[in-house]
């Protein structure tokens, strides 16, 4: 028997990557499509159940397109049972608006609810104002069963004082959990819970910003001989990449561009890339990030250049400089500006004075 563990789809969510308006709209549609692609893949792979571990939607209101897309995906695949556990973002009344739940949709409440799926028992509870403080302590599972527990929360060793903020892994140990299917964290992470089971964040299906770089997808669970074998399946249509390029010691625009190109080797043109220039650069080095941006942006779905270089600058060089430049540097360095501001002001001031000097 096969199952799919997925979470944090955040359908209808706004994009946080600085995409253009058109591409942001396109990307939102891609998020929906990736969800339906996953369901189609589940059908091909004869998956019996899909565990949606929270944050299926993102906002308080859901577009009719997203609602219908999800409902169609569920109703068009009656052979697949959908287990939908609501997360902190699912405050949209999606379920309340349904007069009749699809027959293959199973939902959870603020108390533990269990369903039998073949040889597996699927148990879950949602965190809400109604959730009991000792919810985790109340969990009771049969030792002779294969137990999957669904939760949407931050898993920590000791949990958090506030309900819903975090769950304590300590409390969940020794409760005969075979697989703790978690949602909330947007990257895949799996670790052993106790001798009997593991806990796993499957991550989101598609990244939405440069803070969600790397492979995204779902976890395929194969239930065989009383065991669960999890396998992460990369499934995102596009990936986010953050590429650091150290341009220390480079002087010309050509050298910098070559260095950026080398760093981008192997990245798909369909992906979204953020190039971060780092290192110490001489004040007189040729560095025009707008030009690099223009030069590369058409090669990728999204390309952003961020300049995090610092000036290769030594205050001692200006200690005895009897010039406007020297006076300016000493004044700025002695000022109460923040270090970043000092750097920016120095960069701008010195550039202005030196460019003026060059006529």
């Amino acid at each position, binding site marked *: 028997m096969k199952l799919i563990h997925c979470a944090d789809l955040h359908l209808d969510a706004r994009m946080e990557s600085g*995409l253009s308006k058109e591409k942001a709209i396109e990307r939102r549609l891609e998020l929906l499509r990736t969800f339906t692609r996953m369901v189609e893949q589940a059908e091909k792979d004869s998956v019996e159940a899909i565990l949606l571990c929270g944050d299926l939607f993102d906002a308080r*209101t859901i577009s*009719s397109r997203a609602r219908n897309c999800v409902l169609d995906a569920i109703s068009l695949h009656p052979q697949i049972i959908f287990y939908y556990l609501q997360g902190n973002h699912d405050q949209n009344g999606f379920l309340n608006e349904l007069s009749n739940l699809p027959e293959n949709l199973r939902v959870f409440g603020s108390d533990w609810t269990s369903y039998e799926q073949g040889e597996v028992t699927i148990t879950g509870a949602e965190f809400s104002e109604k959730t009991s403080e000792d919810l985790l302590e109340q969990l009771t599972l049969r030792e002779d069963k294969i137990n999957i527990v669904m939760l949407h929360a931050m898993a920590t060793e000791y949990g958090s004082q506030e309900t819903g903020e975090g769950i304590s892994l300590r409390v969940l140990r020794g409760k005969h959990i075979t697989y703790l299917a978690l949602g909330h964290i947007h990257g895949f992470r799996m670790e052993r819970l106790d001798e009997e089971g593991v806990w796993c964040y499957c991550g989101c299906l598609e990244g939405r910003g440069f803070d969600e770089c790397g492979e995204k997808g779902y976890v395929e669970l194969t239930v065989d001989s009383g065991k669960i074998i999890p396998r992460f399946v990369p499934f995102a249509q596009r990936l986010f990449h953050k590429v650091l390029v150290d341009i220390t010691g480079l*002087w010309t625009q050509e050298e910098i561009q070559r260095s950026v190109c080398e760093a981008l080797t192997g990245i798909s043109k369909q992906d979204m890339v953020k190039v971060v220039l780092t290192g110490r650069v001489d004040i007189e080095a040729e560095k025009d990030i707008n030009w690099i941006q223009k030069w590369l942006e058409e090669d990728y779905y999204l390309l952003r250049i961020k300049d995090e270089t610092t000036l290769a600058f030594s205050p001692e060089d200006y200690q*005895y400089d009897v010039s*406007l*430049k020297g006076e300016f540097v000493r004044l700025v360095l002695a000022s109460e500006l923040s270090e970043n501001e000092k750097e*920016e002001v120095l960069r701008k001031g010195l550039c*202005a*004075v030196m460019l003026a000097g060059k006529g």
Partner: protein
Amino acid sequence: MQILRLHIENFGKLRDFDLELEDGLTVISAKNGWGKSTLAAFIKAMFYGLTYTTKRALKENERKRYLPWQGGAYGGNMEFLVGSKKYRVERFFGVRDKEDTFALYDLNTGLLSEDYSKRLGEELFLVDCAAYERSSFFIQQDLGTSINDSLSAGLSHMEKEVGDLHNYEQAIASLETQMKYFQKTGNRGLIGKLRKERGDVLAELSECRRQEEAVLKWNVQLSEKEQELQGITKEIEALKKVLYKAQDYGQMEAKRVQYDHLRSEAEARKEELQKTAVLLAEFTSKPPKEEELDRCREKLYQLDGLRQQEEYARAKIGEASRRLSVLEEAMDESGPGMILGVMAALLPIVGGILCAQGKGTLGIILILAGVMLLLVGILQSRRHHIQVEQQKKQMSVEEENLKNCEHEARTARKNQEALKKKICRFLQVAEHTGVKELEDRWRCLREESRQYTELKQMYEMQRKEASKSRELWFQYGESLTEEERGITIGAVDRDQNIQRIKIRLRELEEQRETFLKELQGIRHQVAKLLERAEQIPVLEEEEERLTKRLEEAVKEHGVLKKTMDYLKMAREQFSVRYVKELQERIEEYLKSLGIEETREVLVDAGLEIKVQEAGAYRKIGYFSAGLRDLYAFVERLAIVDVLYKKEKPTLVVDDPFVNLDKEKREQAEKMLEERAKKGQVVYFMLG
């Protein structure tokens, strides 16, 4: 500070070159191309080293510019005096600054000194390399041309000499241009544009959020209304049921009668069944089955058949015995021929008589008849003989037949006895019981069996009927409500109740209609609002983009503003630090020349020197070439005095007085001698 001597190993065109310098003024007569600039660069390099740069232009790349023409070690040493301490600095240069070597010796001890680092120039003079270079090496051409250039460029010679102050206005202009890109008056520029765009988006977003809030409120209202509607619908349905029940009270009664009827019928069936069960219980032992009895009947028939067979055999024995007797008797009797013979003999006699008596005809007839009888008698005799033969044969057959019949009778008798024994055992009677009794016994048992079977069948049938009847009763009972089972409303009450229900129903139906219309309106409204609300993510993204761009623009503008402010402050501070002192020094030098006592000099904040002439301050470019050179030289001396607070550098002066008339030149040289008393001066005169 005083340079004592220097030795150039290799530096530009100078090779293995030694020079000793006097305290005060050292005058060297040299032709063009002697290497004055190289010497000045060497002295600078000994103090400051050579900077490393990737710039290819030879003019800007001193390391390349002064690479030894003939190769060899690149550098040299120089001895100098600071206070009472003598030092020797040794520097050799590589292609890159990392390859450079530096050593400073204390000549009093002969040991390496750590009094100064390789940043010797800065630490000694408290002035950086560029400022040192600008201020310690005086070339006449520079003075002249720079004044001319400054006139055309609107920049003062002084500014250029004291640093990059001449870049100030241009830098400020550049920063202002950049700032204007972000912000212009009248809220124009990128920031204004972004603020407006963001404001528009925020307004749109706010409207969409308002719509979203409205959607949520409408949804709550929708949910409440739907719940109310559900309540109304439920009430309507319940009332309809009650009304229906009330209106169909007769039917309800009929149902109850039917229910009672079914119950009594079920009970009656049950009673019948019980009676039949009692009757069945009366049979102490179960009678044989009819099939078995039928088989017994057949056996009885077989017994009767055997009996008849025996009787028949016996009858046949009697018959055969009788026929045998008859045959024996017949055998004993004479045949009919005798009579006929007698007759045949008599008749012709009689005939003859008669013929004789005259009665011929009759006699003839009797004679013919006698002949005829004779013939018949002969035939009869023949036939009798044949008959006898036949009778003998027949007797033999009959005897055989008699034997067979006797055997048959015996066999039948034996079979009868065996069969009867079986029958008696089956009928449970004594073996000697007669056939008739057996028949009676069989009939009795047959009757019992029939009765038992019939009862059994009847019991089964009754059981089914009772079960069916009971089922019907229960099912019907279940289909009825408590009310239907126990309806007790009186007719008058019922009518009043129906009226009340009808009124309430009408009210509820009207309410429901109103609710449905309201709900439809709300749903339509929600759908319309939702279209706007769905734009929220798009607008949020747009707002985020614009906010980010705006923040970046504001930050950039802020940085530019701060840069400009600090640049202005730097300029003011720079000016304040040097202007007053510079003015005093210039005035001192001019007084010492004794030629400008009546004129006032002004150094402005831009370190530009203006000299009063004909009631107005004029830039020095206004004056003759000789005066310009003189003013320029004075400015430089003043600048050196102002810049070097601690140790004064050795001034390398390359004949700056060529444009002066004799009188002024002497005055200038005298002033230089005076200046040399304060600090060492190397004065190159065109030889």
